Each structure stands twice: as structure tokens, then as C-alpha cells.
């Protein structure tokens, strides 16, 4: 069986830990990772709990395919109640940490309570210790990882940690593992900080057994081939996810200057061609690509900054290679804040990883602050003397660092866009849903994206559904509800396996189900796999309803509903959420208050 059938439960308040058997009845219903962690969270805590209180539960969960020979099998999810939204948070990361945690013998790590002093957790197979963080409290993610490897004299240790942002409760602080891979969204790092937990350092040597090794090997061989032959995958390998920026610009779906516009004049200065261009001084932004554990796609970018650039000219500690621009970071440090200086964008990306923050939420929050500044609502007196205008690269990098270190105006940016805009009396400038900022897609051009954003259980998110095909063909609200619902369920199922979402275009649910079936001992048809996804989605919804969310929260900002797109292929259009949402509730088997009906709950065994 591909599960380790063991959970590590840590009570930080009392400084104890124990191992317990994985609830296999639940595993058969919720599989692993996102799904199974949601079930544990639902059973373990009251959804009305304050996310920053010790009563919140923080779960690191692998899936049955994590650590196997399936491609992209390094994934794990961090599931908790999110402090940015007050909704369920599920952030998923790659790198190598997830597989290592599983090799140590655990499907899941459940963290409860709050440590009396700053601590870190050391796991070496069966040896589990809660140790004092000492000087690591207040250190960066990068320093923490390096120090823990040295302290334990083991370079093979994999570390997931938080920076000062997480320690100080920046609402969108993330958990970073392997230096530049992150469980990025919804503030899961702030929950870790509220538990006085700096890091989890894991070392595992146990491997993973699958139920049918021969059958699994065969299906893995076939699915590897599907990835190798897929043109979309090839593009991801060669250009990274930022390949999307040119298409989004042409389409007119690239949110610019806090979603006031939908196309950005500086796109060609920050696209993959610009990353690869050799400059007159010989510098080239992009160095190479990089893969997470077991991944045959390798979408990650490794880049460096020109040493003469204003951001690092006197800071040798940044004269090295690290995670480079991806589509979402290019959007969040580029168009949405109006900046087109590729080195400044790259530096902002380094700072996010070093200090542990979600680039999307940071960028969109900064964009709102810039709009407030240009309106005259905030001035240089508020911003520590920084000219917070759209397009100012210094404003981007200085504020990224201030937020990461929780200094000056950075403390206010750390509230997230919703709280910041409310504080200054302009809630209408918050560009997001349920307290979480939008990703780099404007839902006037991409109608189904708007529905996905509005109904996403963790607040605005582009990774929990896939209606791109429908959005490319028709820019009205027609025909979006069913594909939105079906792709949400399929994504929830995928997120419960331990596999990366970027396989979806080449594999589809059937090929995922085949791998799960061979690894987990049979019985996993595509139908059962997708029903599991629907069960996960619905349970997340139940959690949010219990936490106090209602249909009113399935909404979009007025800017997207009332102000027509000023240019692009959707010029003159607004998002038609009012047409899509009732149909969406119907296809979900929910009433018009957005609550699952008894019949639906019964059908899903909830």
C-alpha cells in the first residue's frame, strides 16, 4: 500500500509527540494530502476557532503517490484554518520535503497547540524531537535551512520553515521548503508562527511500498511518456509558467495597476524572451530550469540578478542564483504594480522566498496601496518616505523587504489588501474574494475564472479549477458552471494524490486514477476518484459554512462586475457572475443559499 499508515501527532503546548495509525476508513474516502487532511481538520477542530489561536490545527499531509516513482510525486499540502481569509486553507508545495517526510514513515504530521518558546521539530525516521529554536527565531528561511543542516551535520535533511513574516503574523506568510518551494497561499506560515514553530526538519530512510509494483511500474512508464510527448509540458519545461504572460497580454486578461487595466505595456520586458536575452554586458537573467522531487517537467526557473543593479549592487549576499520568475510572480511584481524592471521583479521574488511570503498576495496588496497613494489617501508620511507610485521598482523591492522583516509600512502591507483597504476607508479597492487576493487573470476576460475565484474554498484562487478552454472560446457567462464544478472536483482529487497540478493537461483524471489504483490496492476507478474529489470539495464548503461564510461571500469586487474591461478581447465586458452562480449552485446540488442539500450530502456520504 502506498500509504505509510502512520500519522505523527505533535502537541506543541505540552512538548509531546506520538505516532498513531492512519485512519484507513477515511483514507478510502478522502485518499490523502488535501482531501484526507481536510477530513482530519474537520474532525479535530471547531471551524469557528480563531486561526491564530493555539486551538487551530496545522497539518502537513502527503498523498499516497508522494515519494513514489510517479512523475512530480514530491507534493505535500499544508491544511489549516487560514488567517488571511478565516476559511479553510490548503496550500500545496513541491520540492523534496514532502517525499522526505513520507520516507520518515508518516503520511501526515499534525501540529496542535502552541510551544511555550520558539521551537523547531526534528524528525529522523522514528526519532522525533521538539527543540528550542534559539537564534533561529528572527532568522530568514535561507539561514534557517542552512543552519539546521549544519547543526545536525546532515546535508540530506529537508527543511520547511518560516521567516520573520510568519513569526510576526503577516497574514499571507507562507511555509518555504527547499529554499524556494512554498506552500504559498492563505497565510499557512502565519499559523506556524502563531504556534511558535520555526521549522520542521525531516530526514527519512524508509521508502514507500506500492500495492502492485509491476502494475504501478507499467502505468508510470506510460504516464511518463504522455508527459514527454505533450506540447504544453514541453513549453513548461523550456519557458516555465511565465510562457503564459504573452498570451494573457494579447488576450487582455493581464491585471494591471490593481485591475484598473487588463493589458500591460511592459510585458515584453519581463516575459520568457526577456529572461533569456543576453544583455550588452553579458548578463542573462535565466540560468537554468529546475525540477521538484521525481518531476520530469522541471518548470522551475533558476535566475540571478545583474550585480550592478540598484537592488543588490552593495549586497553581495544576493550575488547568487535562486528561484526566478514564474507567471504568478511576474504578474504580482510586474503588471499589477506597473513595474517592468526584470531585475527588480527577480529580487522581489528572492525576498519572498527568503522571508517566506506569498508573492501573489503581497503584489496585489502593494497594488492597492499604490492606488491609495495615487488617490492621495496615503502619503509619503505613511510609506516611510517611499514614492509608492505604480511603476516604481524601488517601491516594489523596498516594500517587499520591509514586509518580510515586518518593518514600517511593511507591517500594514502585511495585513493583506482587504484589511489595508478597509483601514483606509476604501474597501472597494480590495481585489480578491473572501479576503484572499486574485492571481494573474482578469475575470472580465476570463468569465469562468471569475466563477472559480468566487467559489474557491480558500478564497480567490486560480489553482482550484480549470475553465481556461471554455474561457478562450466564449467570453460570456454561458456554459461555465458545469466545467467549473467538474474541474474543481477533478482538481480536489488530484490535490489528494501527492502529484503536481501541472500534469493535468497531459494526464486527466483517468491516468491519475490508474496510478492511484495500482499504488493503493485496487478499486480506484476514475468515477470513484472524481467522486472523492467532489466529497473533498463539499467538505471544504461545509467547513466554511460552519466558519460563518454564506453565499454572499461567493462574490467579486464591483470593479469586475460593473466597470467594463478598458481594452483587449473583452473590451466593454464585465464579469457575468450573477448569471453563472445560480447555475453553479444547481449543478453542485446545492440550494440557492449555497448550501449542499441533504440529498447531495447523502450521495457523497457526508
Amino acid at each position, binding site marked *: 500500500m502506498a500509504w505509510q499508515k502512520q500519522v505523527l501527532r505533535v502537541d506543541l503546548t505540552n512538548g509531546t509527540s506520538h505516532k498513531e495509525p492512519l485512519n484507513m476508513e477515511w483514507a478510502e474516502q478522502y485518499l490523502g494530502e488535501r482531501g484526507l487532511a481536510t477530513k482530519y481538520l474537520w474532525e479535530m477542530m471547531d471551524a469557528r476557532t480563531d486561526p491564530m489561536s493555539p486551538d487551530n490545527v496545522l497539518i502537513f499531509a502527503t498523498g499516497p503517490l508522494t515519494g513514489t516513482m510517479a512523475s512530480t510525486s514530491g507534493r505535500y499540502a499544508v491544511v489549516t484554518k487560514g488567517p488571511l481569509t478565516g476559511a479553510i486553507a490548503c496550500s500545496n508545495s513541491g520540492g523534496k520535503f514532502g517525499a522526505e517526510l513520507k520516507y520518515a514513515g508518516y503520511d501526515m504530521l499534525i501540529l496542535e497547540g502552541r510551544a511555550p518558546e520558539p521551537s523547531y521539530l526534528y524528525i529522523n525516521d522514528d526519532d522525533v524531537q521538539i527543540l528550542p529554536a534559539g537564534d533561529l527565531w528572527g532568522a530568514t528561511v535561507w539561514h534557517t535551512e542552512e543552519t539546521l543542516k549544519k547543526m545536525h551535520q546532515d546535508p540530506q535533511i529537508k527543511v520547511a520553515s518560516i521567516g520573520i513574516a510568519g513569526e510576526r503574523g503577516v497574514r499571507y506568510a507562507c511555509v518555504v521548503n527547499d529554499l524556494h518551494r512554498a506552500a504559498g497561499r492563505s497565510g499557512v506560515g502565519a499559523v506556524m508562527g502563531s504556534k511558535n514553530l520555526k521549522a520542521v526538519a525531516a530526514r527519512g530512510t524508509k521508502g514507500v511500498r506500492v500495492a502492485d509494483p509491476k502494475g504501478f511500474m507499467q502505468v508510470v512508464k506510460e504516464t511518463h511518456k504522455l508527459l514527454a510527448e505533450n506540447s504544453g509540458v514541453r*513549453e513548461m519545461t523550456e519557458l516555465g509558467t511565465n510562457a503564459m504572460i*504573452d498570451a494573457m497580454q494579447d*488576450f487582455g486578461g493581464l491585471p494591471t495597476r490593481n485591475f484598473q487595466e487588463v493589458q500591460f505595456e511592459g510585458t515584453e520586458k519581463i516575459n520568457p*524572451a526577456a529572461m533569456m536575452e543576453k544583455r550588452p554586458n553579458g548578463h542573462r537573467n535565466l540560468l537554468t530550469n529546475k525540477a521538484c522531487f521525481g518531476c520530469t517537467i522541471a518548470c522551475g526557473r533558476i535566475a540571478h540578478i545583474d550585480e550592478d543593479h540598484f537592488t543588490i549592487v552593495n549586497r553581495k549576499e544576493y550575488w547568487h542564483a535562486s528561484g526566478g520568475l514564474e507567471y*504568478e510572480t511576474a504578474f504580482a511584481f510586474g503588471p499589477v504594480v506597473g513595474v517592468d524592471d526584470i531585475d527588480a521583479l527577480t529580487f522581489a521574488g528572492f525576498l519572498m522566498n527568503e522571508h517566506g511570503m506569498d508573492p501573489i498576495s503581497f503584489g496585489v496588496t502593494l497594488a492597492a496601496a499604490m492606488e491609495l497613494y495615487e488617490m492621495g489617501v496615503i502619503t509619503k508620511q505613511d510609506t516611510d518616505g517611499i514614492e509608492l507610485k505604480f511603476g516604481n521598482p524601488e517601491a516594489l523591492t523596498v516594500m517587499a523587504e520591509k514586509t518580510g522583516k515586518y518593518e514600517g509600512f511593511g507591517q500594514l502591507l502585511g495585513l493583506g489588501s482587504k484589511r489595508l483597504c478597509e483601514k483606509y476607508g476604501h474597501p472597494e479597492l480590495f481585489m480578491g474574494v473572501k479576503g484572499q487576493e486574485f492571481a494573474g487573470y482578469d475575470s472580465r476576460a476570463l468569465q469562468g475564472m471569475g466563477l472559480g475565484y468566487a467559489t474557491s474554498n480558500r478564497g480567490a484562487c486560480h489553482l482550484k479549477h480549470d475553465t481556461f478552454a471554455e474561457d478562450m*472560446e466564449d467570453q460570456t457567462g454561458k456554459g461555465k458552471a458545469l466545467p467549473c464544478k467538474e474541474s474543481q472536483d477533478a482538481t480536489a482529487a488530484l490535490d489528494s494524490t501527492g502529484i503536481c497540478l501541472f500534469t493535468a493537461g497531459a494526464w486527466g483524471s483517468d491516468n491519475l486514477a490508474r496510478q492511484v489504483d495500482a499504488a493503493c490496492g485496487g478499486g480506484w476507478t476514475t468515477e470513484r476518484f472524481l467522486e472523492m474529489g467532489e466529497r473533498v470539495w463539499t467538505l471544504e464548503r461545509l467547513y466554511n459554512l460552519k466558519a460563518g461564510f454564506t453565499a454572499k461571500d461567493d462574490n467579486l469586487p464591483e470593479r469586475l462586475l460593473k466597470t467594463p474591461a478598458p481594452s483587449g478581447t473583452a473590451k466593454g465586458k464585465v464579469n457575468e457572475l450573477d448569471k453563472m452562480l445560480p447555475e453553479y449552485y444547481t449543478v453542485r446540488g446545492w440550494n440557492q443559499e449555497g448550501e449542499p442539500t441533504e440529498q447531495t450530502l447523502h450521495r457523497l456520504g457526508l
Partner: protein
Amino acid sequence: MKITVKTGGLLYEYLPPDRTANRATLDIAEGATPHQVMQDLGFPADGSYLVIVNGELIAPEKRPELRLADGDQLSINPPLKGG
């Protein structure tokens, strides 16, 4: 008549050798459609593309119908996806 073509992602590989990065000027027959232009350039027929002419989205069923005009700007991108 002449049109300009701009491609996204790796689709520049289908442009003629005299392309400049991801752009090319093409001499096409009077009244040619986006579908014909893409066919002539060798775009795989079973592929999915985002096609825009002069800033206007052209749905797949319109691609064999729309007559291109001199000076038109045809933009061909791979399908949109999340990242």
C-alpha cells in the same frame, strides 16, 4: 497582401525562417482565412490555439470563415492555462 503574425510560447517554431523572434510578415492570398494561414504554416490541426485578429478573439468555428485583410495582425498563442 501582407499580414503580420505574432506567436506565443514555442509556436514561433512554425514561423518562416525570416521571422524576427516571435514575429513574421507573411504574404498571403487574397481572402485567406486564419485557418488557411495556420495550415500553411504547419500548425498541427489537432492542436488547441488562442487566435486573435486585430485584438478580437476568433473562436475555432470562425477561423475557417473570417477573411483576413491587408495589414491585419494575427496573433496565435498556445491555449491559456494556469501557472
